[in-house]
């Protein structure tokens, strides 16, 4: 792979806090190596801004290896940028060429208020998990791990759903700002395992209720969430959540 350097124009959303209005600011960055990650390019820019006595751009990031789900940039109209199934921190600069202009915005959803610049508040996701995204088992209550057999296919599907990193790209990408993919991934993960079946319906109902209360939009099966999910969470999970929900409508079992 040939390495090269590039100069870029960045248009980045700047917003002091959730109460003030934000606006784009334009920055020129020089000599960006194609080997850098997208966030390292921001590091370089921030270093320069600090040296110039200006305020750096605030953005969320932590593990920088695509698993913690903290990073969250909307890059040229794409949640986590253009690479398929890739978080912002794993996007690398060889995607761009000299002279490109890149527009960077925060996740936009009223349920994710902006804290500063590109940093948003995603605690709504935590509250949705609190509403039911768990199996009610106290420590020490467990039977032997192999006492209940789980078909491999179910375990694999459950794992696929569980690989959600809670980054919020689904909400960011959805024209309706819906959180259905996130909620359905958790509902699916637990509903697919025998350990999670006893409260599967209650879980689905409670999580959906909380999701609505948090003010997320409603799902209209557009599918942008699946296309932008860095972990490839499938829309089949939404179908499964709908199924769980519909089941409870018919049986009337499980109340909140």
């Amino acid at each position: 792979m040939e390495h090269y350097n590039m100069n870029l124009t960045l248009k980045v959303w700047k917003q002091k806090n959730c109460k003030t209005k934000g606006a784009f600011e334009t920055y020129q960055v020089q000599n960006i190596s194609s080997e850098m990650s997208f966030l390292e390019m921001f590091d370089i820019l921030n270093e320069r801004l600090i040296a110039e006595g200006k305020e750096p751009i605030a953005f969320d990031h932590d593990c920088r290896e695509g698993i913690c789900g903290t990073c969250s940039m909307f890059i040229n109209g794409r949640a986590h940028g253009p690479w398929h199934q890739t978080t912002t921190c794993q996007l690398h600069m060889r995607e761009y060429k000299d002279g490109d202009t890149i527009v960077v915005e925060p996740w936009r959803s009223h349920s994710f208020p902006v804290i500063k610049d590109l940093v948003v508040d995603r605690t709504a996701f935590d509250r949705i998990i609190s509403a039911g995204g768990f199996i009610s088992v106290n420590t020490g209550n467990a039977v032997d791990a192999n006492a209940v057999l789980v078909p491999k296919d179910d375990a694999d599907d459950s794992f696929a759903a569980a690989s959600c990193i809670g980054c919020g790209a689904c909400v960011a990408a959805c024209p309706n700002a819906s959180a259905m993919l996130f909620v359905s991934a958790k509902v699916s993960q637990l509903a697919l395992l025998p350990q999670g079946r006893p409260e599967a319906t209650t879980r689905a109902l409670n999580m959906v209720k909380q999701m609505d209360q948090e003010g997320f939009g409603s799902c209209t099966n557009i599918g942008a969430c699946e296309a932008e999910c860095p972990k490839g969470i499938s829309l089949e999970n939404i179908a499964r959540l709908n199924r769980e929900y519909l089941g409870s409508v018919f049986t009337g079992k499980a109340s909140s």
Partner: protein
Amino acid sequence: MALNSKIPNGSLEKKWTDYKSTCKLVNPSNKRQIEIIVVGTGLAGASAAAALGELGYKVKAFCYQDSPRRAHSIAAQGGINAAKNYQNDGDSTYRLFYDTIKGGDYRAREGNVYRLAEVSAAIIDQCVAQGVPFAREYGGVLSNRSFGGTQVQRTFYAAGQTGQQLLIGAYQALQRQVSLGTVTMYSRHEMLELVKIDGKARGIIARNLVTGELERHFGHAVLLCTGGYGNVFYLSTNAMGCNVTAAWKAHKQGAYFGNPCFTQIHPTCIPVSGDHQSKLTLMSESLRNDGRIWVSKVKADTRKPGDIPEEERDYYLERRYPAFGNLVPRDVASRAAKERCDAGYGVGASRQAVYLDFAFAINRYGKIEVHKQGLANADQGTIRKLGMEVVKEKYGNLFEMYEKITGEDPYQVPMRIYPAVHYTMGGLWVDYELATTVPNLYALGECNFSDHGANRLGASALMQGLADGYFVIPYTLGNAMADEIRNKPVPTDHPAFVEAEKLVQSRIDKLMGVNGTESVESFHKRLGKIMWDKCGMARNAEGLKEAITEIRALRQEFWNNVRIPGEVGEFNPELDKAGRVADFMELGELMCMDALNREESCGGHFREEYQTEEGEALRQDDKFMYVSAWEFKGESDFYMHKENLEYEVVHPSQRSYK
């Protein structure tokens, strides 16, 4: 103060059982009156907060991330060990205990490690009950793999994302307690001071990272579950935010720091690509099961790897360690890579890398597939294609990650890897009850020093974090809290809180007041370079002494010339980072002092002066079979206490992988 590890009497197998049967208990109505602070929400913190909440304690949990689910336990790839012996291959509690002690190069306590092995099985049960989707066999039972060169298959895993799945399980248990009201969660909060009243830990001062406000929180006890301090090296596989601040504040308030120089360097990481590098990415150790590590026999060879003929390749691990080959423990593999690169045989543009080659595995698997499918006379292309499919099935996600980062396709060209700082075995000194030397202050998980000695085995960090949180602390904390039931919560306008908050405020004001010219990041990089060069994979007395002087000078410069933009009363990541780097600069010095003191090579600590003729680590059991527990006396002034390690069951021997 003399160190008392409080290991219960009796035989190894009975210590924990006896402890559990005889420790003091707190009745349910009293638990509701007792407030516990948990700092950090990784595996140890989340599991502890959840377990204590379930018991009925009033818990407050803190994390610096925006959600407890983001703690860096999430990045662990390989798996979690447990002595289940589901494979009937001879595993047992004793074997897991023995492997851990030996792997740790005989620098861990027998009692603690045995307990760890003992509760390991219950961890798997608990996680499965919580809905952790571990890998399974077609029959529906759990799948195991061998890991890090152990002779038994005791590692449970969920693809390459075991840490994520376990953490999410613990996080869900935690959020359940949040919904039940037993745990109050404070995310985007950082602990900046420990509050002590009458010598006991009684609360913390935390900073709300969104508003910048300082908050006072009371707790009958404080649990630090804040992870390791690998970021002192700037470049490490830790998350960007991982820091030592909470543990360091506790240390300065009287908690001893155990074995600070014991750091683990992981052999298979993606090498540094340039000065812009902000962090290093681990490639799972499982890759060494199939990849062969080599460099050219020619110094500074500029040929492409494919152009280097077989006879000019040096498979140095297989050459030096024929018995274990590419599967030698982490510390050995790392040092061997460094030795080759230092000698001028490194590969890639930076010359700080070695090849991890899958061509042989692809060929081998390809041949097996050809055989299976009955394709006689298959050409090389077919063999390669089938082999690649097998390798993809096993390591596909890792190969993809490698390609995203480097832009190179590891199916076609060998991976380039180099060791990187990964884990810190050292940490706050704790006794058998996980209590530090400050009464009512506990340390769990990577934050404490126990269990892993001088080198941690693969897939054992997750085990320790969850063991401490789910199964140890609920008992040991109760034992102490039984004496606290008469103590009412202290109002946070108590002078100790006021004083502590003032201290924090003045430190922040001081940082903001420097108004210099150099960024925090720049100082951090400079500190990291000193640490990596002189207190990294190989250390010597001269270098360590230089490092101490350099760190002191750097610290001075930092406090005179750091520039922190923005305001105190707002979301200000630069200020957060400045506080953390300031603490790293103090810790770095202590690490060098500890490394200088430990005149032997053991585990992750390699002193160049103490090696065998073949360049292997040379322990000095007669002089250094102890835990160094450092007490903070004042700036650059630490006093070392020794906790001698007594081996009643295991007989320390030289580790040999030849």
